[in-house]
């Protein structure tokens, strides 16, 4: 009967209002490139001091989940992920918007995010203590291979332009080496410049590489930013739900991937979205349409990144190990409140906090449906109806504010603009931004995992065995092989089929 008490507590007027406020604030913040979930929660921390721990958690959880969803708006409408978690959403979301299906993409992102969020929260409720062990099973070597798996997506993203994709990926990886290395503390490739000591912040690079070229093209061409569909088609909710239903297995798989990647402390929402996207694409019968506006791609990325919210709370609450960067801030806020995380939190006297919070997370996720649809509709209308002369300066202004806000640093703004200009030029020569961004985001994880795995392996007497002899590593290596060579195999199949068809006629 205690369960009902927790639910009743979570749906008290007070908790529903803070969850609603949190989701709305989170969605708006997430939609603005540069303003991340981590920042939003950090700003909230002092407010939570005066709250009860469970209420504080509900508020922070609501902002968090809203922000992860909000990142989809700018990804779909401006080709600029509002948060890194929405990188994979740009792949198909923006092409959808381009051809006039932006409203559908936004609605689909909402329904998929809600679904993913619910799956993540369900895992948190039912299986948190055993699942937390996944966080521990992943060692440096596993992170190394996971990052390589993410990088293997370059092959799928640059079908037909493999060499350019790889060059782009390498460029991104080189960019990450600039600045004070997080682990070795070496100061690399700063060329004596103080601006470069802080390195290239991935989020500012993301804004530069994705958003600046879009802005330049907007100004340089007379065409409308997005195709406008004729007539009011409402939210297109029915259409979105039927797409969700048609791809229910893909949706569920993406949500599970998102939950598991969320549990891994070294990974996070961006990798969750990328891995889920890669898997959805591989297993889809329509895989050749991915990247050209395939709704399933948006679904995979958005369900996975919202599932990381619930997933990330699993190691945070069970082990005290933050699953994602926003979890680290939430953990800090709990410490100030005097709450110790750990397995005991789920069974001891304080377990009511956890269960009220989980119930609150469900409520917040469900609230995302109406609020998300409404805010999404508004954002879509704004982007399509505002004249370019207003849109471009507004977005440009927001990207500068957003980039500055990441680390309160002007250097990041300069780097963002320079990278944006470079990205625009490269794009003209066929080097797409996504491989560069993948290199930027993933090489940090790959580098650390490699160096750590190498030192540990050498100490154990065999570095090679460390990389190739661990069961989880082997599993990931197999996936890498499949993901890397699948485009080649798929093309061979298609060719064969065409040949057969030809010979039949």
């Amino acid at each position, binding site marked *: 009967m205690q369960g009902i008490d927790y639910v009743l507590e979570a749906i008290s007027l007070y908790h529903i209002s803070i969850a609603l406020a949190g989701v709305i604030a989170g969605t708006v913040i997430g939609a603005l490139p540069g303003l991340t979930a981590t920042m939003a929660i950090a700003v909230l921390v002092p407010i939570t001091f005066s709250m009860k721990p469970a209420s504080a958690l509900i508020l922070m959880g609501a902002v968090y989940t809203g922000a992860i969803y909000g990142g989809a708006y700018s990804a779909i409408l401006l080709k600029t992920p509002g948060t890194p978690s929405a990188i994979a959403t740009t792949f198909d979301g923006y092409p959808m918007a381009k051809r006039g299906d932006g409203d559908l993409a936004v609605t689909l992102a909402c329904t998929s995010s809600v679904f993913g969020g619910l799956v993540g929260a369900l895992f948190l409720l039912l299986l948190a203590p055993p699942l937390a062990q996944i966080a521990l099973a*992943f060692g440096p070597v596993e992170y190394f291979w996971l990052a390589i798996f993410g990088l293997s997506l370059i092959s799928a993203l640059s079908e037909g332009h493999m060499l350019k994709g790889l060059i782009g990926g390498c460029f991104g990886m080189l960019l990450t080496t600039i600045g004070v290395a*997080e682990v070795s503390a070496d*100061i690399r490739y700063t060329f004596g410049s*103080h601006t470069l000591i*802080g390195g290239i912040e991935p989020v500012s690079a993301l804004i530069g590489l994705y958003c600046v070229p879009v802005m330049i093209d907007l100004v340089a061409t007379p065409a409308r930013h997005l195709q406008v569909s004729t007539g009011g088609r409402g939210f297109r909710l029915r259409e979105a739900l039927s797409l969700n239903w048609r791809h229910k297995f893909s949706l569920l798989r993406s949500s599970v991937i998102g939950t598991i990647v969320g549990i891994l402390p070294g990974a996070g929402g961006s990798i969750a979205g990328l891995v889920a996207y890669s898997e959805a694409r591989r297993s889809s019968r329509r895989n050749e349409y991915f990247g050209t506006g395939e709704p399933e791609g948006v679904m995979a990325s958005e369900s996975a990144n919202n599932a990381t919210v619930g997933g990330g709370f699993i190691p945070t609450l069970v*082990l005290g*190990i933050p699953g994602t960067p926003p979890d680290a801030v939430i953990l800090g806020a709990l410490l100030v409140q005097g709450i110790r995380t750990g397995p005991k939190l789920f069974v001891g006297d304080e377990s009511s906090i956890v269960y009220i919070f989980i119930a609150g997370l469900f409520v917040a996720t469900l609230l995302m449906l109406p609020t998300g649809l409404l805010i999404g509709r508004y954002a879509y209308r704004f982007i399509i109806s505002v004249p370019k002369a207003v849109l471009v300066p507004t977005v440009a202004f927001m990207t500068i504010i957003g980039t500055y806000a990441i680390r309160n640093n002007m250097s990041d703004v300069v780097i963002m603009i320079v990278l944006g200009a470079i990205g625009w030029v490269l794009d003209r020569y066929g080097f797409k931004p996504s491989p560069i961004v993948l290199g930027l985001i993933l090489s940090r994880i790959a580098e650390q995992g490699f160096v*750590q795995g190498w030192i540990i392996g050498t100490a*154990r007497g065999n570095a090679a065995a460390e990389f190739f002899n661990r069961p989880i590593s082997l599993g990931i290596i197999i996936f890498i092989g499949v993901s890397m060579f699948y485009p080649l195999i798929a093309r061979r199949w298609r060719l064969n089929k065409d040949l057969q068809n030809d010979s039949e006629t």
Partner: protein
Amino acid sequence: MKTFGKIVLTAAAVAVAATFGLTTAAAAEFPEKAINYIIAFKPGGESDVTARFQQPFFKKKFGKDLVISYKDGGGGAVAWAQLNTIAGDGYTIMGTNLPHMVIQPLQKDVGYTTDGIVNVYMFHYTPDAIVVTDKSPYKTLKDLIDFAKKNPGKVTFSGSAKGSSNHLAQVTFDRLAGIKTAYVAFAGTAPSSTALLGEQVVASWGYTTVPPAYPGTRMLAVAMEKRHPNFPNVPTFKELGFDMVSGAYRGIAVPKTTPEDIRKKLAKMIDDINHEPAFIKQMEDNGFAMLNAPYGPELDKFMAKAKKDITTSAKEAGMIK
């Protein structure tokens, strides 16, 4: 003549206003408004957490908010390089960290120097400690040293970054104990402790803050003068015959243009919080160790010693030439 009169009048008015302004400024108690507290690292880390501990006490004692913001990058260097470009009116303060602030300027030109930073207080430290899991076969420090002596190079320690207090402690301890171990650097205490809990490494060079935050871990020894009040059963390295006291020290600095009296006032305020029993309890329960080095000769003495010790171990660790 008319104009001259005007000038005289204006000048008089300005003078009066200035005097009046000055007197009110002096009479009004500092701080008159919220103080910005910049953390040179990401939110959620120990620098942030300890600032968050200070935050409510500051508000309660001085009636004004302590507004925390983050300027991370370059292992803290980005923020510290900008500190002296900020207006020195006392309303901007910044968290500082040792050994970072000693090692970075010795590595390369990072835009600031150790002596160029005006610290007003060093308020706590997280002592280095050897941490193992509850299940670890090593019950005492001696067990671990015995194993390491029989298996040179086989013992792996996870730790938070290179050139950090953890790393310097590993190098110093290897020398003192006559062993050779491998140091595996992670991007912070959280991933380093996760690797320990996941048994990716044999042990961890962590801090006394690790066991309270990560259930399932325990310490073999702590690098303090006396035992930590929260862990009376864990011996110090000194007791066991290894002369080492070290850790990550945290303080608060101001832009160098900050007037002398404001520096002293800020130091006094931090000192007040540092002597608040509820604050001390919160810090110690979470494994932090208190330190009271206020602006003036005490801080100078502390910094001089820290600088000398850190430089010596950083050279030994190969971080600087």
